């Protein structure tokens, strides 16, 4: 079985990329905090799942991709397009169900997509976008355009049949796809260790004769980036798919405002993860390495906060869709409803 042994070899990451990692993690953080407060105020319709605590995993993976590479994800859907470089106002407008939303108000929180940055859509049905990413890799392979596809899926989705079919398909066809498991150790309230036959999802790679690696410190954005980069480079060289599993933790409940009947997570466990916050860790590293000064990083944070605030302003000021828009965009060549709209 091939191994991803280069994973822990240090990677060269230039100053701008290191700063961009912090910027994007901060974007996810500020966006999610804003969203969480909107949910609290009852101003966001629908279910909302945040990536608070998982920023390093999301951003490290996305930044190992080129802007033209493809990506799919899941219900925890905001971080992925943000990490991939999507512009924030249409994302925020989508969450508010506005016609200026990136999906014109048809997708909402669990189903963001921004094709302009290769984000082919997030799936509310757990695991369901994994075959789609595999297919994006198939087109890249057949068209020979040098692109790769990455699919984010959770530890819960690791037990979906479609993942296993996709792994096998990608392996036999040597497709340029990275199966990226965001192992935050719980699927809703179910601990991964109680429902996984393996300690680490990446172990399953051996069943498909593909490389599998687990980044144990998924709060370290550089470690994530390095591991995913190896898999991306390998895919781009035509050597096929990999599983990259990132151990991480979500700070919030499964979805915002969800009330649980019983405690399924230990408060101390949560505290221990919060103590190693990915943004704090990366900031400290940048300062220690002299990549940037306190003042520069403070400026970066406040710029991002302004960006998120103006995204929210844009979203709030945007109009709601006209009722007739419900009928748009089902088909590329539309079929009129017989007898008119109901």
């Amino acid at each position: 079985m091939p191994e991803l042994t280069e994973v822990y070899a240090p990677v060269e990451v230039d100053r701008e990329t290191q700063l961009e990692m912090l910027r994007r993690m901060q974007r996810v953080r500020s966006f999610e905090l804003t969203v969480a407060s909107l949910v609290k105020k009852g101003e966001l319709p629908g279910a909302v799942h945040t990536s608070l605590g998982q920023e390093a995993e999301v951003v490290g993976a996305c930044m190992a991709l080129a802007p033209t590479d493809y990506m799919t994800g899941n219900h925890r859907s905001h971080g992925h397009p943000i990490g991939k470089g999507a512009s924030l106002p249409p994302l925020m407008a989508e969450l508010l169900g506005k016609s200026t939303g990136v999906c014109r108000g048809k997708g909402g929180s669990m189903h963001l997509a921004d094709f302009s940055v290769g984000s082919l859509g997030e799936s509310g049905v757990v695991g369901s976008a994994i075959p789609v990413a595999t297919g994006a890799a198939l087109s890249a392979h057949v068209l020979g355009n040098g692109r790769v596809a990455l699919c984010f899926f959770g530890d819960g989705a690791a037990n979906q049949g479609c993942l296993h079919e996709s792994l096998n398909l990608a392996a036999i066809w040597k497709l340029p796809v990275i199966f990226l498991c965001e192992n935050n150790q719980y699927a809703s309230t179910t601990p991964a260790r109680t429902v996984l036959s393996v300690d680490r999802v990446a172990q399953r790679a051996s069943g498909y004769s593909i490389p599998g690696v687990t980044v144990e410190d998924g709060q370290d954005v550089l470690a994530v980036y390095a591991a995913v980069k190896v898999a991306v480079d390998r895919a781009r060289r035509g050597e096929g798919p990999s599983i990259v599993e990132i151990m991480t933790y979500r700070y919030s409940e499964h979805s915002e405002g969800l009330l649980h009947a019983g405690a399924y997570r230990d408060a101390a466990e949560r505290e221990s993860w919060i103590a190693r916050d990915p943004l704090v860790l990366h900031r400290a590293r940048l300062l220690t390495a002299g990549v940037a000064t306190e003042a520069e990083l403070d400026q970066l944070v406040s710029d991002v906060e302004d960006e998120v605030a103006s995204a929210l302003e844009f979203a709030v000021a945007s109009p709601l869709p006209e009722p007739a828009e419900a009928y748009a965009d089902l088909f590329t060549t539309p079929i009129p409803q017989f007898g008119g709209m109901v």
Partner: protein
Amino acid sequence: MTRISYLAAIGEAQREAMAADPRVILIGEDVQSNLYGTAPNFVEMFGVERVRNAPISEEGFVGAAAGAAMTGLRPIVDLTYASFMYMAMDQFVNQVAKNRYMFGGQASLPVVYRASMFYRSSTAAHHSDRPYPMFMNVPGLKIMVPSGAYEAKGLLRTAIDLDDPVLSFEDATLWTKKQDLPDEEFRIPFGVANLVTEGTDVTVVAIAGAVEEARKAVAALAGEGVSAELIDPRTLVPLDVETILKSVAKTGRLVVADPAHRTCGAAAEISALVNEYGFDSLKAPILRVNTPDIQIPFSPSLERPLYPSARRIQEAVKRAIGAVASASP
């Protein structure tokens, strides 16, 4: 004109489309060996990159074809038996049908999923389904039901050209049936019904293999002085409701022959539409000739009587025109 079978017509449509556009690829179990007969010499013509043998992973390759379609390919997927579509139900319903809509029109899915309905051949309940009505209930999928070699070829060419996902429900009872087809390439538009036979007393709408049975019924009825108009909708989504309504406006009577199960079937939908929009022209209740709501038994003696046959269609027409008194199911 060349005389070819339904199966060969499908192969021809695929061959022409693949020759015309390198983005068209074929994915399916056993396609390289041409096990089912719709990909003769395809590996030699197009190579293994474009003629891809799939593992038995319907959910995986149905979804992968969708992802490939969203990113620049135009895949044709051969699922062989229609019953195997159920393995991929999540991908059909949650990804293929919804990805354009949910992402606000950012995605196009030019992909064709082909599946054969192998009824009337003692394959029993696991291999005999005619599940198009289930998919008619899913907005976002276009559905073709070719009733002959001409339709199979012409509709499939259109399906491959369309930027929307198409499900092709091919009728295996027609596989070997031959027809004279034009030598030049041709396409049949979606949403345009074929007026097979003109008539004045009753409209018969028939679907897929039932068109063949209805033809026989209409011929027999003509011998008895009944003039039936036969319509083949050819595609169920979009459905050419206008042509059906126009015919019913003339005849005042409608019989729908549909090899799927009765409940919530295509016939039920057509009946409802005519009831809603053509009630004033109706002189008699609309009658459905379906497969009853029972699973398909193995024994030929049990299976054969279940589907719409020329005899059952003929009887329904007679009930509709009042030649036979009451409607017994």
